[in-house]
């Protein structure tokens, strides 16, 4: 009786704790290995060997093919500079330098990384097509309504994510080598009421 009860307790603890914590750890972003620079995050370990077991499982579950570190680097931002979540109802201004690379692309997606496909507007820009200011730095506006200059269209609602991809970049990605000002700043301009 005592053994049965104890076995029951062991299993009642082990199964939800084991499966629950594993699924929680694999649900979103890799729990380890992130490099954070301002609002931007990157997982340099995802594109090289050995890949950590969490990142490997997340890649397998999502079906993605991550960019190899020899190909380039990926940064994602779900927040603005102040740490507030990026939401479709607000207008943001993205400006400043990005680390050296032969080409960069900036993409506006939902939080899962899927392109926002129901819109007529532009949801990605590249370093070759972007218009630059007098100082050579581009300023990109994220908004629902079209604006002159560099513009990415916000979806109707919901949280959004910015993805910056640097192709053929000599930069090594670690929190020691990157400064906040080496990545674009994301500033909230205004929000719809």
């Amino acid at each position, binding site marked *: *009786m*005592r053994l049965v*009860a*104890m*076995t029951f*307790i*062991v*299993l*009642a*603890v*082990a*199964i939800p*704790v*084991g*499966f629950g*914590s*594993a699924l929680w*750890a*694999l649900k979103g972003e890799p729990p380890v290995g992130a490099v954070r620079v301002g609002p931007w995050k990157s997982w340099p370990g*995802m*594109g*090289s*060997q*050995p*890949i950590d*077991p969490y*990142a*490997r*499982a997340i*890649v*397998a*579950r*999502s*079906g*993605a*093919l991550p*960019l*190899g*570190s*020899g*190909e*380039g680097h990926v940064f994602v931002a779900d927040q603005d500079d102040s740490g507030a979540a990026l939401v479709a109802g607000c207008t943001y201004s993205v400006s400043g330098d990005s680390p050296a690379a032969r*080409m960069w*692309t900036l*993409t506006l997606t939902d939080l*899962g*990384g*899927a*392109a*926002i*496909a*129901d*819109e*007529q507007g532009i949801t*990605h820009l*590249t370093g*070759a*097509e972007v218009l630059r200011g007098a100082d050579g730095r581009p300023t990109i506006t994220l908004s629902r309504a079209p604006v002159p200059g560099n513009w990415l269209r916000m979806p109707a609602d919901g949280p959004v994510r910015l993805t910056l991809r640097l*192709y*053929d970049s000599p930069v090594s990605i670690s929190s020691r080598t990157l400064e906040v000002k080496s990545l674009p700043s994301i500033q909230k301009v205004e929000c719809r009421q």
Partner: protein
Amino acid sequence: MRIRLSDIVLATVAGLVLGAIVHVVVVLRVPSLAQKDAFSRFALAGRNGHAELVAAAVPAGKAAPALPDADPAAATAVCAFDLTAGPVHVTAPASGLLETLSLHARGGGVFYGLTDRASLRGQIDLAIMTQAQLDEAQADEDEETAGGEIRVVSPSTKGLLVVRAVAARPSLLRQAQAAVSSVTCTREDGSEAE
């Protein structure tokens, strides 16, 4: 017969330890049990010796790309390789666009990545082989047969070659699609890679 408090505490601690083991086992087993991972979905890609287009810039309003979180500005093609019958040779003709190649081991992990900077005489030549096949190739070769190809040792016999070409402007997308589709992946004897 009553269960003592110390038994409950002991059982809970044992449960937590077992739970940690379950956690580790689940995380480690997910890659081999996943159904929609890239290796399962693209296992037949490139059977005809050419990389197969799997994602590109999809214009707004069209169906989602086959590859989650693919760059909409880049055309992506995939070729599955299997080294059990011999090394696989990859050629990627230069297209003038920014092109990158990466090799993904089955079960996860990018083990090699390069860009078109590595091209020689207008194309990238790559040979994917196991350590045993590399040893054999080095034992056989003399100075005349040693070519300009880049030899890469794969940690697994099966994997994926992924080719991306970035369209700097939307008008270059067709050229990017053509560039990644022109990449070949064949066995030494010229037969198909898969």
